[in-house]
């Protein structure tokens, strides 16, 4: 099965860090990514640009509305993700526990709805 690990965190914390702290932070993510690769479970991962660059869109009554960020709906913002392969939720959680994101924010793990799987 595939699981998406969504990394939420306080974006301003990063900018408040010293250069050295930022380097340490980046190194932790590099090591984690390397471990996922080595185990052969990494399917994809990306870091997102800050949420003030976000744009939201929705259609109402056939009219497309565009909302420009930043959005103040929560302090922790989605900052990146890992897509991993894991046999079950327990295995996915053991990877989540090692993610550097849990040290400074919240990581949400969700199973991917596989193509062709029955919806309910």
């Amino acid at each position, binding site marked *: 099965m595939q699981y998406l690990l969504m990394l939420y965190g306080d974006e301003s914390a990063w900018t408040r860090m010293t250069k050295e702290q930022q380097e340490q932070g980046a190194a932790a993510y590099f090591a984690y990514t390397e*471990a996922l690769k080595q*185990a052969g479970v990494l399917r994809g991962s990306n870091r997102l640009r800050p949420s003030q660059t976000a744009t939201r869109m929705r259609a109402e009554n056939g009219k497309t509305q565009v909302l420009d960020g930043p959005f103040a709906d929560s302090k922790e913002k989605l900052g990146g993700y890992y897509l991993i392969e894991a046999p079950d939720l*327990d295995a996915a959680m053991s990877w989540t526990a090692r993610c550097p994101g849990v040290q400074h924010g919240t990581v949400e793990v969700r199973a991917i709805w596989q193509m062709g799987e029955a919806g309910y």
Partner: protein
Amino acid sequence: MADEHALAHSVAETVARRSYGKLIAYLAARTGDVAGAEDALADAFAEALVHWPVSGCPENAEAWLLTVARRKGLDRARRRQYEDTTDEDLEQAGAALKEGAEIPDRRLALLFACAHPALNPAVRAPLMLQAVMGLDAARIATAFLASPAAMSKRLVRAKSKIREAGIPFRLPEREELGERLNAVLAAIYAAYTEGWADAAGTDAFRQELSGEAIFLARLVAELLPEEPEALGLCALLLYAEARRGARRDAAGEFVPFERQEVTRWDGAMIAEAERLLGRAGVAGRMGRYQLEAALQSAHIARHRAGWNNWTDVLQLYDALLALTASPVVAVNRALAVAEVEGAAAGVAALPNPEGDARLRTYQPYWAVRAELLARAGDGNGARHAYEVAIGLERDPAIQRFLREKQAQVGK
């Protein structure tokens, strides 16, 4: 009133801690219904908190709880129209109350039921912690890194299997005792290692979990004093527990075994472990836990006295590897090989991670590999192996330690 209430509450808690498993074991042994026993006992504790502040704490609190729990269990059984519970149960419990007699200890039978081969090995340790120690599913889930809902479901399923499949509450026959005992010991060991992971001591529940595991190990060693492996496991856990605090310095940084301060070890606990291991050896039946305890003893002796006993250590690892064929043992053995025969031999002795997903995600494998490659002069290989080890580690203090080791490669 408030004081009496607080007193009743604290008596109920003390009784719960001391006798929970005993009461559950006694209640469940007849009916085979662990969940039913838990419900009945929970009702009894609730009733105790209502009555004891008014009428005072009973002299024999255990018997009081047992009587009420039985009555509650009986009520439930009648509601469900079970026919296998009789008034005889209640009379027996009443007799225990009157005479103040000791409630027979059937915890060992309960432990064997929880570690029955018909149950999924992964649920055995959680089940023991719940049934014998009374820990709730949410806390067990946190310790075993599972979701509370999933853990709760697993525990419920296991208990209904015990009841519906008729898993017996008894000591196994002598011919199968060894194998069945191994399952009990393995589950206790698993509970301990979950608790051991919290080296920083910041997670009170994990630390508590180690304590519970040691309680269970002592209980089994006490109830089966003729079984050398039961004594061996108890010794092993005590050796480890004695060094728990020494794994961190005052600043919270990780301290590897060879740099730990002997004065920060618990000498009394080590002495107890030595005595247990000595008693186990008398039986002349070697086993996995005795060997692991003997390794702990050898490492501790080397560190305390400063002598080189790596050849003895390697022999113990050889025996352990022959017995278990475990890749985890092979990883630790490789370190001993490197001490005796040199770093290159150590690298060659590492198990092959190809096709072994567990080993590829096992942090100590990569840390040991990195250490041995560095000693053998392969700087790039060592740095990469440290990178993977850091990525696999959850504990920031150990990550910092590995990062430092990585920076020192080739210097």
